[in-house]
């Protein structure tokens, strides 16, 4: 017995087991305690409330999937694919893995495509369920997070490169702008943009109009949208023919011809479209698509704040490239832009990507600030749901799981991208 205990492996395993048991017991005791207390206070538990009718109005209702089973199927296939890719990479040195890997890729992609094709998309109505309401919130969160990440990256890169410009005015205005945006809390950014939009743009009765097509007032930016195409056989022929020839021209290197043909084809297509134009009717502008002030204010706030940090990250990345590399590029005869694109940025990315992914994570989570300005993001909607149902623990758990999923996806994507920019073989 004593000998067994002297064995470090056995000892370590015992310690581990004890620790795991202790943690599991704590978790169980906490859960048991919470459930007992809820029962004692007459609060119902469980997720049954999710199918009940929500009954409240949400101001922004992007499409949400109706068949969650198929979405889960697609997500599962994607997860399998990623796991397979990782495992394949891990063991590829040991034995050739390529054929089965390719097969798994094709199979998983097929499963994902089929699953997603089964899903019908709807928009939330007050008759929808609490789950629909939460999904609408999640959908709003994801929309802002995606647009925010893309926009902040573009603005951040431009501002970062401007900060290193040789032009005095450009360099210093970029620096001042970055410094200003970085030093103001995000909440203030968002409130500032919201107040600005509400007070700067005219009220709805005195809306501004661009060409009579796009209307702007403090309730939103209203754009005309295409609702349908009236396609007959001639237009089908013209459009597909144009597209095929344009593709062929592109393949054979006739870029200009291809562009002109593509433009012509799309012009023919658009000429058959039926449009929905926004116009003032009664209290509001109706028709078209609207970008609402809450959405715009949240997005602008996030862009201003996070692009400032991304600009700093880009500056540090570019500065990490030894000056000799740039000189070498110039001495090879490369101009400024190609030198930047081919020599500096690929090396800078190694330094830029890890902190950049943290910014993406921060941005995705900071969308929750939308609560302050009536944007119905996940947190905003969940607060109403929490209120109407009183199921605090369940709703908070769901919200946490949703955020975890969003953050985990971002982390996964940026990690995979990071692997492609790292020095190979490390």
């Amino acid at each position, binding site marked *: 017995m004593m000998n067994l205990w002297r064995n470090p492996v056995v000892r370590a395993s015992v310690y581990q087991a004890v620790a795991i048991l202790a943690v599991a017991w704590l978790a169980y005791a906490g859960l048991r305690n919470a459930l007992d207390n809820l029962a004692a206070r007459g609060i119902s538990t469980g997720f049954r409330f999710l199918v009940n009718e929500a009954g409240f109005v949400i101001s922004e209702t992007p499409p949400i999937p109706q068949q969650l089973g198929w979405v889960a199927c697609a997500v599962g296939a994607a997860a399998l694919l990623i796991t397979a890719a990782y495992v394949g990479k891990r063991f590829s040195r040991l034995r050739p893995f390529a054929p089965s890997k390719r097969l798994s890729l094709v199979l998983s992609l097929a499963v994902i495509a089929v699953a997603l094709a089964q899903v019908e998309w709807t928009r939330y109505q007050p008759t929808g369920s609490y789950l629909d309401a939460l999904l609408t919130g999640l959908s709003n969160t994801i929309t802002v997070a995606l647009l925010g990440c893309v926009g902040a990256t573009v603005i951040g890169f431009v501002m970062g490169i401007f900060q290193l410009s040789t032009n005095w005015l450009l360099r210093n205005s970029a620096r001042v702008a970055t410094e200003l945006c970085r030093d103001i809390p995000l909440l203030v950014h968002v409130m500032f943009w919201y107040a600005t939009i509400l007070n700067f743009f005219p009220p709805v009765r005195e809306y501004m109009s661009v060409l009579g097509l796009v209307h702007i007032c*403090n309730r939103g930016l209203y754009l005309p949208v295409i609702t349908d195409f009236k396609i007959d056989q001639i237009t089908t022929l013209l459009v597909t023919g144009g597209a095929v020839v344009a593709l062929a021209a592109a393949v054979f290197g006739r870029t200009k011809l291809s562009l002109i043909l593509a433009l012509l084809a799309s012009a023919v297509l658009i000429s058959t479209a039926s449009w929905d134009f926004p116009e003032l009717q009664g209290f*509001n502008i109706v028709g078209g698509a609207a970008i609402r002030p809450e959405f715009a204010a949240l997005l602008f706030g996030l862009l201003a704040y996070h692009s400032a940090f991304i600009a700093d990250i880009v500056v540090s990345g570019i500065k990490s490239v030894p000056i000799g590399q740039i000189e070498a590029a110039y001495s090879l005869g490369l101009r400024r832009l190609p030198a930047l694109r081919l020599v500096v940025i690929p090396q800078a990315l190694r330094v830029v990507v890890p902190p950049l992914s943290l910014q993406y994570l921060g941005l995705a989570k900071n969308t929750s600030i939308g609560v302050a300005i009536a944007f119905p993001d996940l947190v905003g909607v969940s607060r109403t749901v929490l209120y*109407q149902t*009183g199921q605090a623990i369940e709703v908070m758990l769901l919200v946490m799981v949703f955020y975890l999923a969003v953050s985990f996806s971002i982390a996964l994507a940026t990690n995979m991208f990071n692997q492609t920019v790292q020095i190979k073989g490390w």
Partner: protein
Amino acid sequence: MYTTRWLGKLATTFAFALCALPEAYAQTAQSPTLASIVSRGTLNCGVYPNFPGFETLDRDGNYVGFDVDFCKAVAAAANVQLKVVPLTATERFPALVGKSVDMLAMVTTRTASRDFGNGLQFAPVTFYDGQGFVTRTKNKIKSAKELSGATICVLQGTTSELNLADWLRANSLKLNAVTFASEDELLRAYEANRCDAFTGGIAIIAGRRTNFRDPAEHIILPEVISKEPLAPVTAEGDEKWSKIVAWTIFATMIAEEKDVTAANVEQIAKDSPDPELRRLFGKSGSIARDMGMDPDWAMRAIKAAGNYREIFERNLGAKTPLRLERGLNAQWDKGGLIYAPPFR
């Protein structure tokens, strides 16, 4: 010798046990919430940070208002200090159920789902309200049904949010709703013309209207789209405490019926011949003891807050900026719904 001593001990123990019996009985009968309030010396009462007429800060930084007066009455009845705890709409039920506060008096609508699902015990209704709409006078509309296509601002987590959706569906109106988490942000957005109207309990929005630059530019539309019985709330699980809060509220209503005011309550408590008042003020009967209170509880409550009429007129009535009529909140014999059960 030994036996007698032993018997003596037994007798003493028995005697002690006998004496302790009523004591122990009283212990089990007393409300645990009341006991902790008394030992702490303060009643923690949850209110909104700012709700004109119902709970606001006066110039000296003290909370005053219709709801606060009921907190005061309960604190005085328990003979403890009142500590007003400002809470938001989202915090209030968890704070109450988690025992951070002993009661809420924060314009809370009683509904079935709140009664059964949230561990709440509603006290008697102190204010019968209904949901209405405020809009700009210059919109020139006379009925909420003319609001078709308008944008309405609504406060998150209130029954107004659900009533609005129900009412829209019942009348097949299409409206855009913008849901704000904070009242201040909502009012700012309404003032900036982000919405054409906002909705809420009529008494509440009447109070909000007083905050606008020119209250006359805004009108309350005549439609009342819901029943909003506003009542203080206690947590489920301590029936005795809930009943004490309920009967403190009833006491203010009985006091109005019998014309007992804060000014004359001491006199009346001392020498009124009215049998109900004698029971209420602990001069006859044992109701106070059964409640776990001392006989003067009702006298203190009315001295601190006044009767129901005084509370109403002081905070919401004709002489206040809200200028509300008694309406549904008149006594039952004057065409209203305020009706206290008999104190016997």
